[in-house]
């Protein structure tokens, strides 16, 4: 068998260099326009009752789902690309949310039920002064830094011990579940100083501006949407780099990676920490839109849901988890209104169906040559 001598330039030609093709950039631009122009106009300018008016409920719901989509994207980097299934990402999301919540609690000022300088739950507990960990909660910049630094540092330390001990696969999933569960129990306690099982709610202002107005709602939505787009582009740059290919190599054959001279610890730890920080940012954007944060966000079930969004949309594709987050949460908000008692059955059935029939998720189905895209292509080909 003689191998034909092909010109090397043809064979080695790569689609590298540019982050996205012209089509991809147009899609990103379209997404930015929809988020930053179309939605605000339809919600604020088009009058209520008009056919094209976008309701406040829809804006808040979409903003919430965008935060979930950021989590799913973060999960995809660590699970889809690196093969490490974390069932504790809800903790980082909640920590980011609590970081924002602390600032929002201080912004209430003396408008609370007890008309006190301290947040209501502290008055209720008969505390006389702010505990030490609330020292910076009046400063937005400081609190914004903590939103990134605290979950990042926790993920770094946790990951360093776990990856250095070469904890892998299901064992890693279990200890991450344990981590978020332990944190939930801690946050449930009143003594921890985070409002116990009620958490934080009843926010009034952000940066001195009232929070419960239409403009603020749309502004938070726009910021969340733009953050999602920015994270998407960052994730694309990461997975297109050699670093991203090392991550996939770790997923496929970690021993080979080690015997090639790469230290998997540094790679796993960096992507794990980045993924945690992305979740924390999502949490910080989520809390002002939803208006509440409590320890139930740290329950293992919340973390498992993030994994489900990613799996349903399609692991190891970047658009997949975003699609998955929108699909599952969209279905959830429709189901819980239409058939409230059947939602959990539907979620279970969905997960089973995806595991059995769509190992690559919705996006895998669309991209399969015989999938919907293939059918569509064949149909259009016939017509022309």
């Amino acid at each position: 068998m003689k191998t034909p001598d092909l010109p090397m330039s043809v064979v080695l030609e790569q689609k590298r260099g540019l982050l996205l093709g012209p089509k991809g950039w147009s899609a990103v631009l379209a997404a930015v326009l929809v988020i930053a122009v179309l939605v605000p106009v339809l919600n604020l300018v088009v009058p209520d009752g008009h056919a094209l008016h976008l309701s406040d409920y829809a804006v808040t719901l979409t903003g919430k789902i965008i935060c979930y989509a950021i989590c799913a994207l973060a999960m995809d980097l660590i699970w889809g690309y690196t093969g490490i299934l974390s069932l504790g990402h809800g903790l980082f999301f909640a920590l980011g949310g609590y970081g924002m919540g602390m600032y929002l609690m201080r912004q209430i000022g003396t408008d609370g039920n007890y008309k006190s300088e301290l947040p209501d739950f502290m008055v209720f507990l008969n505390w006389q002064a702010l505990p030490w960990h609330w020292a910076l909660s009046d400063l937005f910049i400081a609190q914004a830094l903590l939103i990134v630094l605290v979950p990042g540092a926790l993920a770094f330390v946790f990951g360093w011990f776990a990856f250095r001990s070469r904890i892998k696969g299901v064992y890693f999933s279990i200890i991450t579940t344990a981590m978020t569960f332990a944190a939930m129990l801690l946050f449930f306690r009143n003594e921890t100083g985070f409002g116990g099982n009620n958490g934080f709610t009843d926010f009034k202002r952000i940066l001195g501006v009232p929070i419960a107005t239409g403009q603020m709602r749309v502004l938070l939505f726009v910021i969340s949407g733009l953050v999602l787009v920015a994270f998407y582009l960052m994730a694309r740059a990461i997975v297109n780099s050699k670093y991203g290919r090392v991550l996939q190599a770790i997923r496929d054959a970690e021993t080979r990676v080690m015997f090639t001279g790469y230290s998997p610890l540094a790679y796993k730890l960096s992507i794990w920490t980045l993924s945690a920080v992305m979740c924390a940012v999502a949490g910080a954007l989520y809390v002002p839109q939803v208006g509440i944060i409590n320890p139930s966000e740290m329950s293992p079930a919340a973390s498992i849901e993030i994994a489900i969004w990613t799996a349903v949309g399609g692991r190891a594709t970047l658009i997949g988890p975003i699609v998955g987050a929108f699909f599952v949460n969209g279905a959830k908000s429709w189901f819980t209104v239409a058939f409230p008692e059947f939602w959990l059955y539907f979620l279970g059935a969905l997960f089973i169906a995806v595991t059995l029939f769509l190992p690559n998720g919705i996006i895998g189905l669309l991209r399969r040559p015989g999938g919907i895209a293939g059918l569509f292509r064949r149909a259009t080909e016939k017509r022309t």
Partner: protein
Amino acid sequence: MTPELMEEGAKRLEAYALKRASAATASGGREAAYGRPTRWGEADFSHGVALYLDDITVSFDGFKALNALTLTVNVGELRCIIGPNGAGKTTMMDCITGKTRPDSGKAFFGSTIDLLRLTEPEIAQAGIGRKFQKPTVYEELSVFENLELALAADRRVRASLFSRLTGTQLDRIGEVLQTIHLLPEAQRTAGLLSHGQKQWLEIGMLLMQDPKLLLLDEPVAGMTDEETERTAELFLSLEGKHSLVVVEHDMKFVDQLTEGRKKVTVLHEGSVLAEGLLADVQNNDKVVEVYLGR
């Protein structure tokens, strides 16, 4: 001078050359040691030894997988290691590459690098490449990307985040693709290759690393006769430039590699049973006993 005398002289010369050849070790490009300081992390081959295992013992729950194993591989040498199943061949490779820590003994790479103090990635960076028994490639990546990751380069996170292939590196990948006969498959997903092609790809990844010592665990398992022959040719072309340790069951392949003049080591129950030319070893009573169970 009579023709008989000349013929006799020629024969004697030939015999002498053969004797010399079997005793000689390839120099492997080693240089004189004087006046050349070794750099940190760089193996020192000036004494002609590439790999030095001394009295290595490994036991798993009381079972001695390696029992006082002592083995020396010279620079540029191609050494074949044979032995029945469970003789400790793979455990030996695990010890050299840092996967298993021996209970006692010494393992040196060159004359300065203590292998027992390094981690797997450090050993790989020092210049030891390993091919597994079962071909291990990155199934979801393309053949090209598999080789790109193996390319000798800075292995740190920041470096790979911003790495771009240079023209020289592209040429090198192209060259290796040609050597392993996978050029037409360069953009194919590695998981779709045949078993033999995966073996070749893994060998190609080793070549990209440009290691000084190659450890090859059953490299021709699952290959066709023609592929086996080409593999033998490839290894023979590497001999001298690299040191090679080949573990293999296929005696025909071992015969091709040794070319009737190189040493073969027989492992049995974790230590060296016999060492010498393949023909001699095959006639050794102890070896026959071990293999045939008499």
